[in-house]
């Protein structure tokens, strides 16, 4: 350093270099080329950006889905349409996901429990004495509610994993919120119920004898 300063005229370029280095340092301080972030902070950011299916399903369930139960198709209408023509019933009332070989429906109705055996609850509709609706308590699979409600569009989600995770969480809500109501020992045959939920039916030429309901709402009347 002392030798450089002692060179007299050479000190001007030296000062220029120092000034340039200082400018660069100041610039890099405000606009860094590399930004270091604590690992935990970065992981938290990724977790926040990740789709939260549990929260989404919770908001969906307590918001649009429960509201939609008021507008659901009356089950008697669906049964009558299915008996006339399953194909036309699907076209008129069914929701079909893409090029699917099944249709889903969102229905509501009232009825009476006529039997409760091995976690299978059979319900006869009002003014009828035969079981038309069946609810199976236990693990819930499929997309009857998600697709039957017609409220969610697969194209709104960045990938199908998110769309599927929602269905899985909705099914979990059925098990956690609705099945305990039905599992109540006081829910005996003879109990009159109001219900709403999803039904999934594969394409067929004949109407099914009973409809398997995945319930969103079950309430004693």
């Amino acid at each position, binding site marked *: 350093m002392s030798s450089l300063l002692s060179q007299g005229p050479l000190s001007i370029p030296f000062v220029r270099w120092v000034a340039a280095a200082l400018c660069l340092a100041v610039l890099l301080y405000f606009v860094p080329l590399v930004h270091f972030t604590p690992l935990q902070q970065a992981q938290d950011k990724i977790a926040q950006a990740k789709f939260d299916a549990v929260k989404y399903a919770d908001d969906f369930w307590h918001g649009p889905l429960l509201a939609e139960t008021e507008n659901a198709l009356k089950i008697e209408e669906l049964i009558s349409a299915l008996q006339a023509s399953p194909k036309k019933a699907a076209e008129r009332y069914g929701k079909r996901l893409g090029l*699917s070989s099944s249709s889903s429906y969102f229905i509501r109705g009232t009825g009476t429990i006529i039997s409760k055996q091995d976690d299978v609850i059979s319900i006869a509709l009002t003014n009828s004495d035969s079981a038309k609706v069946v609810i199976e308590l236990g693990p819930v699979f*499929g997309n009857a509610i998600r697709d039957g409600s017609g409220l969610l569009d697969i194209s709104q989600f960045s990938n199908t*994993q998110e769309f599927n995770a929602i269905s899985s969480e909705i099914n979990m809500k059925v098990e956690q919120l609705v099945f305990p109501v039905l599992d109540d020992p006081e829910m005996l045959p003879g109990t009159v119920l109001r219900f709403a939920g999803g039904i999934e039916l594969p394409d067929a030429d004949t109407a099914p004898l009973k409809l398997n309901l995945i319930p969103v709402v079950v309430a004693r009347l």
Partner: protein
Amino acid sequence: MIIKRFPLVLLSLFLGLSAVLAGCERGEQGSTATSAEESTTAKQKRVAVVISTLNNPWFVVLAETARDRAQELGYKATIFDSQNNPAKESEHYDNIVSSGYDAILFNPTDADGSIANVRKAKTADIPVFCMDRELNANDVAVSQILSDNYSGTVALGQYFVKQVGKKGKYIELLGLVGDNNTWNRSKGFHSVVDRFPELEMVAQQSADFDRAKALEVTESLLQSNPDIDAVFAGNDAMAMGAYQALVASGKSDTVKVFGFDGADDVVKLIAEGKITATGMQFPKVMAKTAAESADAYIKGKRDFPQKTPVAVELVTQENVSNYGDYGRN
């Protein structure tokens, strides 16, 4: 002066010549058309069919059906094999863009990695229609026609529990880890099977959707887990590899194999009672829908759903007679 500039001139000549040769190469790669054919089809629009791999009969059916449907609709169609290699796929896209194709029917190698390629085509105003495999982006492809893998494996998982029982040991063979189908299938299956805590997955390993790798992986897993009751394979090629390994170890009569795809060889083995079940995807339906969508786009249609799931159907010994030739009979 000339001598001074000579290296520069030489370099320019070299670069120019390279560019010309590269252009020639691009023009010919993936195409089987002769120059005579080129001249007669000068005005014919062209469709590129870019497939993740042709080293699997299921994808060959997907590719050939897409090509044939595009040809029926009046296009000159060429198949490009990405060999499960994103770099190869990227090269194909460069060639397709520079050659000015009119549409791409695309089966991606990677849900994230392939996005940049599709973006390249989009920038060049070439519409892309995905088949079977998904991209993790909704703003690049015009439309994505996808198998509903998750729902398919939910049904397969329920059948698995019925066949294997609520207690047992199994191994899972995963496909390519960068592909969404791998995880949709695995998650759909586990959404059912994991509800039964006594069904224990003793090993889960990737065999890249490849039959030979599945044979190798299963052989190795059988060494450490000789008492398994079932194998769930994320596609039929791997199911075939696993079945071969079980035959070789004398366990094919006691270990149940479940696949996914609906490949002809697996459907035949289901009919013979050697493989338990598979999920029938419909490659021909997906390929035809993609080709017809591309045709509609070229003719001016712009309103396409971003995603169209195609249902997967469970094929078992009870209904196997309804299926064959990569679809319903």
